[in-house]
């Protein structure tokens, strides 16, 4: 492995990790790298928690009758799964951990523009998480992660307000992270780092931050109105009181469709970094990948109605939303083509991050293409609220974003911790994740196409084979996620010391020791070349 070719003498004496050992030095830190670590630990906890709920769902669906738990419990399981995975894992996953760690380093800054705001955002996240856990302890929620009215505001007898409060508070943590990133990218770039030289990871985070700023407040106020309606029994959305429940859906999806891009764009940024590094090539079509991030962020605000084709939205609005949804798939496709073209004729090596990246490209494509199918009004009539939709969004969210997160974590783990993980085990687990994932979710496309609705705890006999496959796959997937937890922690104690640049990658973050010193760079970096200047060097080395 290339990891061992570099000399090992680079580790700096004082780095951000050994700069203070007390609990206080962590809990009151203003260092973006430590905050990233705090986030990493907390989202891992929530990932595990969300995974437990998912396991409950899959276990119930192992057999056709609802035998493991009653319908109410089942409803709570998938709701808690969705709420935790979306609001407390996927949305902060890449931006708040890798983004927090890397955006300042990639722009050559000492920290984010507002370090205290950054810390505040972590505390808000934790507070939101406490609400969510409290709701689970209180007996859970059963509205689905979408909190649709009037069920959430009038009929549900579960801890709706507490959970919604959790999502509301966590929303502000997301807003503050986005705000911090945008200001940092605008104002704190190192000398020579023009917009055209920014790593695509930074472009992706910039676009994500825009969505966080523009979308999140709308869902915040919508949840407030829903909570008011529930708490005071007044009518904003309740049809019995003259309101329109579809209005709730409009306001909710105005955020939540763009939010699915919060849950993929940062992952796309990770993939751009990994693919170039392990193809040893300059990225193909830099301006198109950068521009498509912005295009996705902006176009993403025009398509939310595709979630409401059968909700009572007017047919004419549906036609408009359907059409624009087709357009929004284009920038995503642009990225896929550009990554593929980057690999073409590159000297591709199959290290763990690259395995995840290749998994991402394939699985995201399937997820995106099925998304376009769902955006067709006529097909959606049949497929809406079936397992087809469940499969679609798991392909993009798990096959896409979680893969990217894992890939990024492996890629930057040596940088973040100063330790190398075990490459063989890492490849094994990447393989397990890929196999387990497809085994879990591909059958769900078929199930949904055959008409199995989502959100029911029982199903007819004829669906049993595919459901058993799915549950079996999910246990493989579970092992695939558990292994990294083990070898990552092991690497902290026994892992080899990481050199500053184990993968011979380009980018400012690789020009500083691993782990980096508290102020990131020993001297302020000056940028003199484009991002991903791989090819030139490589060619010279060959001749």
């Amino acid at each position, binding site marked *: 492995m290339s990891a061992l070719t570099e000399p090992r003498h680079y580790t700096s004496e004082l780095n951000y990790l050994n700069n203070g050992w007390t609990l206080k030095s962590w809990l009151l830190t203003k260092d973006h790298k430590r905050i990233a670590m705090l986030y990493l630990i907390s989202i891992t906890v929530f990932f595990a928690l969300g995974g437990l709920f998912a396991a409950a769902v899959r276990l119930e669906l192992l057999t056709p009758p609802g035998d493991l738990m009653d319908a109410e419990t089942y409803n709570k399981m998938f709701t808690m799964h969705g709420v935790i995975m979306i609001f407390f894992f996927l949305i902060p996953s890449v931006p708040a951990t890798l983004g927090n760690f890397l955006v300042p380093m990639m722009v050559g800054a000492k*920290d984010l523009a*507002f370090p205290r705001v950054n810390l505040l955002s972590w505390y808000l996240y934790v507070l939101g998480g406490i609400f969510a856990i409290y709701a689970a302890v209180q007996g859970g929620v059963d509205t689905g992660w979408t909190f649709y009215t009037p069920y959430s505001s009038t009929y549900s007898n579960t801890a709706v307000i507490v959970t919604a409060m959790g999502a509301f508070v966590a929303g502000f943590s997301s807003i*503050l992270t986005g705000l911090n990133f945008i200001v940092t990218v605008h104002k*704190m770039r190192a000398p020579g780092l023009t917009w055209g030289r920014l790593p695509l990871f930074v472009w992706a985070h910039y676009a994500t931050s825009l969505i966080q700023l523009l979308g999140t*407040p709308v869902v915040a106020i919508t949840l407030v109105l829903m909570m*008011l309606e529930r708490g005071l029994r007044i009518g*904003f959305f309740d049809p019995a*009181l*003259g309101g*329109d429940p579809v209005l709730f859906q409009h306001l909710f999806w105005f955020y939540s469709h763009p939010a699915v891009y919060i849950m993929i764009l940062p992952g796309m940024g990770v993939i751009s970094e990994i693919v170039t590094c392990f193809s040893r090539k300059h990225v193909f079509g830099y301006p198109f990948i950068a521009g498509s991030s912005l295009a996705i962020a902006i176009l993403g605000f025009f398509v939310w109605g595709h979630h409401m084709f059968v909700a009572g939205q007017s047919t004419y609005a549906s036609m408009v939303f359907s059409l624009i949804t087709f357009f929004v798939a284009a920038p995503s496709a642009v990225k896929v083509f550009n990554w593929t073209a980057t690999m073409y004729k590159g000297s591709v090596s199959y290290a763990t991050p690259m395995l995840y990246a290749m998994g991402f490209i394939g699985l995201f494509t399937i997820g995106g293409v099925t998304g376009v199918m769902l955006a067709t009004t006529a097909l959606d009539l049949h497929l809406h609220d079936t397992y087809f939709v469940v499969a679609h969004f798991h392909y993009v969210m798990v096959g896409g974003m979680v893969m990217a997160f894992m890939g990024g974590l492996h890629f930057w783990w040596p940088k973040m911790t100063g330790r190398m993980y075990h490459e063989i085990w890492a490849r094994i687990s990447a393989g397990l994740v890929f196999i387990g994932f497809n085994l879990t979710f591909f059958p769900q496309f078929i199930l949904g196409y055959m008409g199995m609705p989502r959100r029911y705890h029982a199903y007819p006999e004829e669906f049993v084979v595919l459901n058993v496959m799915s549950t079996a796959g999910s246990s493989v997937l579970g092992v695939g996620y558990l292994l990294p937890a083990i070898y990552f922690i092991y690497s902290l104690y026994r892992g080899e010391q990481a050199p500053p640049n184990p993968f011979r990658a380009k980018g400012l973050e690789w020009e500083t020791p691993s782990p980096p010193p508290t102020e990131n760079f020993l001297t302020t970096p000056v940028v003199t070349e484009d991002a991903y200047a791989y090819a030139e060097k490589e060619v010279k080395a060959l001749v």
Partner: protein
Amino acid sequence: MSDAHVGTLEHTHDEEHVAHQFDNAQQQYESGNLGMWLFLLTEVMFFGGMFGAYAVYRTWYPDAFEIASRTTNIPLGAMNTLVLIVSSLTMALGVQSAQLGKRKRLAWMIALTMFFGLVFLGVKAAEYSEKWHHQHVPGLNWNWTEGEGGREVQILFCLYFAMTGMHAMHMVVGVGIMTWLLITALKGRYSPAYYNPVEISGLYWHFVDIVWIFLFPLLYLI
């Protein structure tokens, strides 16, 4: 909002106001300003959700909205609009005082802004209690005796309280910021070289004023 600049307020000497992550005062100033503008962007969208609900129900129930808005007290609303505009003027003059280094005038202007903010809240409280008296508070004290359409009228009142309530909460936060600004200004922290906190608090204050500039016609006049 006020968090956008907390990273910069440790010391009193001008040069030492530059936090470690910034290269110089100019960079810090621009970052603080941009941060506040982005925050206001999110605030626009936050209120935007309620404006959206307003737009929908107004097109659905124009008659009920007309009935409901007749019960609002236009003179009080107009007076409050003026009060807020005056407070915006004093706020803007406060920023100007800081730019010019007139410390005493700055403190006065902040105090006046705070005072007018409190007057606004007082008038708002009077209006709320009037509504309570007439049993026009959905959910808590609601009894519509003025004829037909109570179900729809109720929605306007829900929106009225949600929108003005959210606005009033922003005013309360604003008054809190003014208090803090007054204390720090009296300590002589601001100078022509360093007045960013005054300026971005001012931006917040003006934003809250703008929200009211729209709420007044939407809820009282039409």
